[in-house]
């Protein structure tokens, strides 16, 4: 062996040693750290100011709520210990659990809760209704407060337990006094995790540390209710923009939970013995077709109906996933499987595509071939495939469709434009929502039908629906289901918007993960690693 060979071997051995050392360092993962690879990052940390899903999900880590829903959609106390309701149902008095503290160590007070409810009420539709119905919301002691109503309001507790953005999270009074239209500067909650602001790299990762002072409820964890026990010391919310890299990181054990694995890599992940693939969200997303009701041709109910007659939901769902277990046709505006999610649609509607019938309806509508602007968010993995199917169907019945294709952020801003298409407006476009708001009649934005200023995008105007929605707010729990059904029937009759199915995005996590809670929202309490 000459000197050169010896040197090469020594170099090789050193390389292997360094590589092995690096490998150990690279894959070494603390058992107490849980890494969640989310489908997008946390960019706004004020869950009242921002209505983004991720701001809300961040909120559930840091903040706590007064009430919460369990898996049977029953409202359960969370921060509240006891409460009373007067016989006339106009006075709600609440007492907080003993020992609740903010992350800065100060105690949670009734005044904090009052300020938090008022701030949330500036931004949330049911919050606004609650504030309007309330004569007074005031602290009655260090650990108590009350809501006194001027008129009946059948949703006080369920509003305080709501899971859709914005959620009524509790904050210290000095922070909650910030206007709802202005971002808060501090992140001080009373939830099971504390936000580590100094480690936050927007667009990359957000870090949360276990709040040692949190006192979980004694009941077992059940959906959003029960004991929120933080079982890991540190939770890292990481954003990996490439889905393939995210899947590789899960396989390599660098992350513990991948929120939305790419569908083309699902077979690979499913075949890996260290990974579990399943739908954690029991309801998933509903995709839908939204019409612009204030401009022709979709200001005409018959034109809208013609579009609904082109819908075969499985056609729209198949383009989202070829795994039939991850989707189901559903004709309820409130998500099938939820409390109000009954199918009361007219026979065959939405399940049986009938282009001949649709053409006849369109011809009878008086449609004269006006241009229809269809919005296409090309960078959105759900909206774009749905748009492609919709485009084909509109063409098939003879509509003069123009595709306006651009990025999702531009499309979203365009959808808020009320001008006619000659001035850059729009006519039709797909949308999707999760069940947290849309499963509740009053919170389903697409069912708001008060016209411009009192409805969401598309601005439908339908007095019957609005009257029913108002009645729903005042109705006692026993009557709410019947009103919810009537709202659906009116919405079908008015062809308010088109449902294109319910799609459950699969999620993937390491088999070492235990205690994951089934929910539309990724929850991190109760989660541990073997």
């Amino acid at each position, binding site marked *: 062996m000459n000197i050169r060979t010896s040197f090469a071997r020594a170099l090789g051995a050193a390389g292997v040693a360094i*590589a092995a*050392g*690096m*490998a150990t*360092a*690279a*894959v070494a993962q603390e058992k107490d750290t849980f890494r969640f690879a989310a489908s997008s990052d946390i*960019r*706004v*940390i004020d869950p009242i*100011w*921002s*209505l*983004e899903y991720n701001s809300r999900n961040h909120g559930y880590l840091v903040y706590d709520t007064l009430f919460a829903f369990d898996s049977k959609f029953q409202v359960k106390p969370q921060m509240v210990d006891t409460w009373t309701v007067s016989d006339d149902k106009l006075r709600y008095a609440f007492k907080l659990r003993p020992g609740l503290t903010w992350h800065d160590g100060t105690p949670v007070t009734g005044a904090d809760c009052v300020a938090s409810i008022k701030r949330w009420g500036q931004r949330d*539709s049911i919050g606004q209704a609650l504030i309007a119905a309330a004569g007074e919301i005031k602290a009655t002691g260090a650990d108590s407060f009350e809501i006194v109503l001027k008129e009946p309001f059948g949703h006080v507790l369920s509003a305080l337990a709501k899971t859709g*953005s914005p959620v009524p999270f509790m904050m210290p009074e000095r922070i909650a006094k910030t206007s709802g*239209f*202005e*971002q808060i*500067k501090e992140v001080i909650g009373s939830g099971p995790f504390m936000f580590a602001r100094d480690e*936050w*790299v*927007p*667009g*990359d*990762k957000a870090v949360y540390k276990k709040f040692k002072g949190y006192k979980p409820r004694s009941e077992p964890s059940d959906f959003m209710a029960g004991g929120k026990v933080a079982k890991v010391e540190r939770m890292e919310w*990481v*954003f*990996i*923009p*490439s889905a*393939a*890299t*995210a899947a*590789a*990181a899960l*396989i*390599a054990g*660098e992350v513990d939970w991948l929120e939305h694995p790419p569908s083309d890599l699902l077979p690979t992940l499913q075949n890996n013995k260290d990974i579990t693939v399943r739908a954690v969200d029991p309801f998933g997303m509903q995709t839908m077709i939204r019409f612009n009701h204030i401009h022709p041709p979709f200001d005409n109910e018959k034109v809208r109906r013609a579009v609904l007659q082109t819908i075969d939901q499985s056609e729209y769902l198949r383009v989202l996933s070829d795994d039939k277990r991850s989707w189901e046709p559903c004709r309820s505006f409130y998500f099938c499987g939820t409390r109000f999610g009954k199918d009361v649609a007219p026979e065959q509607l939405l399940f049986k595509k009938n282009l001949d019938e649709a053409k006849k309806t369109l011809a009878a509508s008086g449609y004269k071939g006006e241009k229809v602007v269809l919005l296409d968010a090309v960078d959105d993995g759900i909206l774009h495939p749905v748009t492609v199917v919709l485009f084909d169907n509109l063409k098939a019945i003879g509509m003069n469709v123009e595709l306006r294709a*651009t*990025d*999702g*952020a*531009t499309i*979203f*801003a*365009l*959808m*808020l434009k*009320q001008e006619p298409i000659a001035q850059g407006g729009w006519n039709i476009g797909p*949308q999707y929502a999760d069940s947290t708001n849309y499963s509740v009649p009053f919170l389903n*934005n697409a069912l*708001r039908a008060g016209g411009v*200023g009192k409805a*969401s*995008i598309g601005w439908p105007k339908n007095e019957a629906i609005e009257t029913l929605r108002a009645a729903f707010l005042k109705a006692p729990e026993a009557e709410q289901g019947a009103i919810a059904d009537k709202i659906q029937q009116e919405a079908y009759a008015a062809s308010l918007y088109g449902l294109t199915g319910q799609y459950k995005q699969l999620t993937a996590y390491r088999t070492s993960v235990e205690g994951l809670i089934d929910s539309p929202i990724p929850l991190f309490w109760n989660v541990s690693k073997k």
Partner: protein
Amino acid sequence: MLAYIVKRLLATIPVMATVAVIVFMLLHLTPGDPAALIGGDLATPEDLRRIREQLGLERPIAEQFLGWLWQVLQGDLGTSLFNQMPVSQLIAQRIEPTLIIGLTIMTFAVIVAIPLGVVAAWKAGSWIDQLIMTLAVIAFSMPIFLIGYLLIFKFSVELKWFPVRGYQPMSAGPTKFFPHIVLPSLTVSFIYIALLTRMTRATVLDVLNQDYMRTARAKGMTTPRILAVHALKNAAVPIVTMVGIGLSSLLGGIVVTETVFAIPGMGRLMIDAIIRRDFPILQGVILVLSALYVLINLLIDLSYSLFDPRIRY
């Protein structure tokens, strides 16, 4: 030379001002509204107005521009519309990975490409030259994302030598820092190795045909000495220019690599800001990148005198 440097630095002022005006106007003329993203689909026109007002977007464009310019002149690049962090802090978080990976790529590319280019020029027309040029064409033609995924699959998922994703700063220590920069640097290096190899070959080939090279050979100088001392030094100016341009473009242009390896660098910061219409971030990043671009070009220009004594400033 000092006068030249001052003159060049002063010349950057109109360049930066032009960049600032163009970037600001382009952004504000682009469709898309950050208030719409914040307000959600239920936002009324009044809600959107209030959000825009809070973000300072309701003021006339000229007023917004002058306000921003005044901030910049005071050293304040503004605050993100979404996460409320100072733009300078966001850039500080992101500039290290971009700079480190950019410098590693160029260093590696120079170490590999220059000898290859010189050898290819020396053996021009031979099978060695053809092999090197073929490899260069392949390296140049391979999409970066493909190389990245192949490296991740082999070295991170299969062999587990390197982490799949992320970045650890130098302050985290060498055992954490080095593994995170190996694969991203290697991924982008291929294209720069190919470019520099071809550039080196062409310029060295040109120099080798000069009369003074024939003289050097006639004087009995060895081939390695001719190549290293005479040929390479005389071919250095275009190569250094190429290195400078490459480094400048790497600072803002490794978005694909940053995306594939989930590295929080300047490229991703910029793309995220474009998607969100986070105007202050985008304006700040482009301004800083422009300044770096101008600075690197100045350094490259100054370095010419090291290789060519005829160049004097």
